[in-house]
């Protein structure tokens, strides 16, 4: 086996360990340097931080062991399609919020008129009626605001609900081979963090961005209506900030994703330290864990510093660009007033417009920011839908329950076959145990026999039909791979049992519970079959959970079971209490057990010994012991 370590010398690092987590440029002390050197240092650090954030972002987009990510165009297409489905409520949202914004914009103009009347020569007239008109406009604005906000909530909530339901639907359609193969960690992140980010973007970000955009556009229109002379210079100054705003927006979402990643890293490290407290203490790793946490914090601090600088660069421009127009309005206004181009009322209105414009502009920038982060998460969610199907069901119907495997070869990586031409033919109703050292390919063989994966070459047929050509519903009635069965879903006891036959009635459920010996305790539950179990509800004991899992299989009723002892419910340490349940489940079925414990082999009708991807021995326990080969040696070691 030593050839496995053939790359050891090349990958072992003697001195490269304990390197500082940050490059020296980011931590260097600049005290005493000249101003020029300091500014250069600042720029260099900012660039380094940007590159780091971009790397984190790129990694998060294409996780090494994760699921695919959709591209941005797919996100835009998807959202556009969803908006089109709701075009009427979207139109209402735009219309009502536009009316609210228009009413808000009428007020400064009316206030300006008030000023004009008061400054006009002679006693002011009609102040009261003008004030009443303004009150009416204010009331209208309030009404439209309410209606507009309400429609945007409805729109955002509906859109969000439909998007998250779509995501879960796609997850529930993921190909079987990928589900069995990949780690679920990345999927968990997607349904928690990415759905959360998407929610914030869809629920509030999208409507608010639309409203802010409307307000900005209408404000600009109102300013021009009020006075082109007064507004053009101001608008030009504001427009000048667009370059910097766009530069910021291009970088910001990358920065926030990098920050988010740095915080989840901090939490992961701390979680490991706390959950592994005993290991840390036993091995004297306290110092290592502290340093690891400090390193994570240092990395996170750099991501935050990048964000601070990005925002400062933005603020420097927009704080000036959004506030200087007031100064311009005063100066241009004075000039226009002296020359009789402008009235005081117009100038007052212009000052109010300019001052009220910065709010929606800020909001627009913030919401676009949020939308971008949301879009990145949505891309990861939509990526789930791009996983290609792993089988094309045909129409052939199996003629019987006999399973035949011929010439099986299989590779997880190209040119690395883990099975080298396996032929195997269990008899109907037979108990078979597959034994062999780890890495011998016995688990892979189990997966091929259960129709999870298709062989690279060769065939696995049931009743004459290739397993991979059976529709999933049909396959499940033929053969099931029993792994991880102790998971109790959040839902009722019934939900947890009828999985394999969702049409099963209560009688069938009780019969299954009876068979595995669980009917008694279920009957004692407060709501019997309707009792809610799983995380956050009534907790089942491990034995009860296993019985539920077995009842599930009894209901599904496949004629062949493939058990992987390493991960399945058939655990020798609890088997004593569940003997009856297990017996009820296995009786009358063909059982192929990937055995870790030799007693499973001892009790099987036939034993298959797999070594290095080949079947080297096949026969009953007694035959193999008599053969005096690999199995016999192991058995002697076990029993003597």
């Amino acid at each position: 086996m030593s050839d496995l370590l053939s790359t050891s010398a090349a990958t072992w690092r003697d001195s490269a360990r304990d390197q500082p987590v940050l490059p020296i440029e980011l931590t260097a002390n600049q005290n005493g340097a000249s101003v020029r050197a300091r500014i250069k240092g600042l720029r260099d650090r900012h660039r380094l931080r940007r590159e780091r954030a971009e790397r984190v972002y790129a990694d998060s987009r294409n996780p090494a062991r994760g699921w695919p990510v959709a591209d941005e165009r797919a996100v835009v297409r998807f959202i556009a399609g969803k908006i089109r489905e709701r075009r009427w409520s979207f139109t209402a949202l735009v219309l009502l919020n536009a009316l609210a914004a228009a009413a808000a914009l009428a007020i400064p103009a009316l206030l300006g008129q008030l000023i004009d009347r008061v400054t006009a020569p002679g006693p002011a007239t009609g102040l009261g009626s003008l004030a009443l008109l303004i009150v009416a406009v204010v009331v209208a604005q309030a009404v439209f605001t309410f209606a507009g906000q309400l429609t945007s909530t409805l729109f955002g909530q509906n859109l969000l609900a439909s998007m998250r339901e779509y995501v879960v639907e796609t997850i529930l359609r993921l190909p079987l081979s990928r589900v069995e193969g990949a780690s679920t960690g990345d999927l968990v992140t997607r349904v928690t963090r990415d759905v959360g980010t998407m929610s914030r973007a869809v629920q509030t970000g999208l409507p608010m961005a639309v409203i802010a955009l409307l307000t900005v556009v209408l404000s600009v229109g109102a300013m021009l209506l009020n006075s082109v002379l007064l507004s053009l210079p101001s608008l030009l100054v504001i427009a000048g900030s667009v370059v910097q705003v766009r530069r910021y927006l291009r970088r910001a979402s990358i920065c926030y994703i990098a920050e988010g990643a740095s915080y989840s890293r901090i939490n992961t490290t701390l979680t490991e330290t706390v959950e592994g407290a005993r290991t840390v203490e036993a091995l004297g790793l306290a110092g290592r864990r502290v340093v690891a946490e400090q390193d994570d914090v240092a990395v996170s601090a750099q991501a935050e510093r990048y964000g601070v600088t990005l925002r400062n660069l933005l603020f420097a421009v927009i704080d000036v660009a959004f506030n200087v127009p007031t100064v311009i309005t005063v100066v241009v206004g004075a000039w226009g007033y002296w020359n009789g181009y402008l009235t005081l009322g117009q100038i007052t209105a212009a000052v109010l417009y300019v001052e009220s414009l910065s709010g929606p502009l800020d909001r627009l920038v913030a919401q676009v920011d949020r939308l971008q982060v949301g879009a990145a998460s949505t891309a990861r969610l939509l990526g789930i839908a791009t996983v290609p199907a792993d089988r094309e069901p045909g129409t052939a119907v199996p003629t019987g329950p006999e399973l035949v495997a011929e010439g099986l070869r299989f590779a997880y990586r190209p040119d690395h076959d883990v099975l080298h031409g396996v032929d195997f033919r269990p008899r109907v109703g037979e108990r078979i145990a597959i034994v062999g050292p780890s890495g011998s390919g016995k688990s892979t063989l189990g997966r091929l026999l259960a129709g999870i994966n298709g062989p690279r070459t060769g065939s696995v047929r049931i009743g004459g039909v290739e397993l991979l050509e059976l529709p999933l519903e049909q396959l499940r009635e033929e053969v099931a791979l029993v792994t991880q069965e102790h998971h109790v879903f959040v839902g009722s006891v019934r939900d947890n049992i009828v999985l394999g036959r969702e049409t099963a009635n209560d009688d069938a459920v009780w019969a299954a519970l009876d068979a595995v010996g669980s009917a008694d305790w279920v009957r004692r539950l407060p709501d019997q079959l309707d009792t809610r179990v799983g995380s956050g509800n009534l907790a089942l004991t491990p034995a009860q959970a296993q019985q539920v899992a077995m009842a599930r299989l009894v209901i599904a009723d496949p004629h062949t079971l493939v058990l992987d002892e390493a991960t399945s419910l058939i655990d020798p340490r609890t088997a004593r209490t569940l003997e009856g349940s297990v017996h009820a489940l296995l009786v009358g079925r063909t059982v192929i057990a990937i055995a870790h414990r030799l007693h499973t082999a001892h009790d099987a009708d036939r034993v298959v010994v797999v070594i290095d991807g080949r079947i080297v021995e096949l026969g009953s326990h007694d035959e193999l012991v008599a053969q005096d080969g690999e199995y016999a040696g192991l058995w002697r070691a076990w029993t003597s």
Partner: protein
Amino acid sequence: MRNFPPVVSVFHTLRGETPTSAPDIRSPSRFLRWQMWQQAPVIATATLVGILWQLPLTVGPWLVGRAVDQGMLARSVGGTLQWAGLLLLVTIIGAVFGIAMHTLVVRSWLIALYGTTLLVTRKAVQLGHVLPRRSPTGEVLSVASSDSDEFGALTEITARGLSQLVAYLTVAAIVLLTSPTLGLMVLAAAPVLVGAALPMLRPLHSRQQAERTRNSTLTSMATDIVAGLRILRGIGGESTFGRNYASQSQFTRQAGVAAGVWQAAIEAVGVLMSGCFLVVLMYAGTRAVDSGQLTVGELVSFLGYGLFMVGPIRTFFEFAQKLTRALVSAKKAVAVLELTPPWREPAPPVPLPDRGDLVDESTGFVARMGLLTVVVSSVPESSAELADRLGRWFTVAEEPPPLLESTGRRWGRQARTERREQRLLMAVRDAARAAEPWGVSYGGVDLGRVPLDELRRVILVSDTNSRLFAGTLQEAVDPHNALTREQAEEALRTAAAEDVYDALPGGWAGELDERGRGLSGGQRQRVVLARAVSADPRVLVLVEPTSAVDAHTEARIAERLAAHRQGKTTVVTTVSPLWLHHADHVVLLSGGRVVAEGRHEELLTGEPEYRDVVLRTMEVAHV
């Protein structure tokens, strides 16, 4: 002035560090005060900077008014330019100090946030395996991940609130000096405008709370679907759980809409109130201008100040809210940080002898020096307990059981309280237990008289709950960076973990995910074993080291480990015959006592109980 990330080295101080200030944990408010005091210079500077940042808001409208009166209306080019110039200056000052303010509040926020995380880390390693006995993992983690954020928020709102207070007073002075009546209107309106929304805040918050609750249920349903996805795709049930998710999603949507109605109402009332106030102010102002009590410029200033006051008042409310939340968080933080390890430094500390037998008084167990001793028991827990005692570990068996049968919410609170009391009791018991002689001796020295650090170096107990950490395979096998490549290879071979090396792209540099997720249970177990072997302790105690490994591999490991530990004291608890063949000495544990010992073959023939236990592992299979 401090900067982030802060340096924290209290609770568990590493070599070469000097301990930083310990948090004041006498009460939550003292803890908050300590947090704020730590950063007093940052917060004070931020407050001063914040005052200048607000300058365009506080004096801007006044300058505009001056420009109208003394420039525009006076038809004075000089006056206009002078006041406009001042306005420009103020705008630029505001922008510059805005940047400084932003930089400073981020700094104070992150010092608090990172500082808390680092405090929790140090506390966790200080407590070691005692931590889970004192506090649920979730509570410890949430102090670092969410409560820390509340402390950061408090530093920010403090600086912003103080600077807004100054701004508020400045503006109050300006408006009262300009026109006492209108000034009073402006001052009185602000609390009214903010207060108008208050009656609606309660229904809004309760609906938002409902939305959050339903949303977290929804998230856990999605997580649940992913966790059980293999079953759903393998056995079926997609439509049941898809339907359950969809109906919860709609349920959550309804709560969101209900909250949205109140949100919209609050917005609309805000618009209505502030609009009406502006009209009244404007109307009264124009009357005053008409009667000559007010200049046009002053009226324009008032227009600018009309809604300014709403900002500070909102900030003050926000401060009150965040202070309350920070106090709640401080309570949780104190609950974690006030925990102390039960151990006392032995007086006088006695070094462990270089050689000797490991003897447990209560069971009568003896691990002879240099031998491989296998402990057999029909109850796996009692072997695990013995192993814990041999290494001076508090044993998991004493911990209160997890909240398994806590149904409904009604009992949740009561169960939690009971549990907290149980934990307190256990802290007292642990301290008492740590103070008395431990009852296990090595070379004749009771382990209670030996400094814990030294003990951990000499006796390594690898229990079934041993964890892997994220990092490279090299770091996993050699966490202390103390091995040569040959030694590491040897450790990997001894644990028969070469296939893990082969499975990871990059060999030694191959990355393990957190907790070794991504490896199978058997692979994880063998890497853990390789790590224990490579630590090469004088005494190695392995609890069920091959429970997740197939028989072929188990046989290989037993053989290699026995050879590798030749001449070194090793204890293994297992009932597998594959190990027993290689044992120098076998001990049968029953009813908390050693009832028989000898070689495997002798015990098989001479001890019926032993034969029962060992052979039962085979009989179980008769299902």
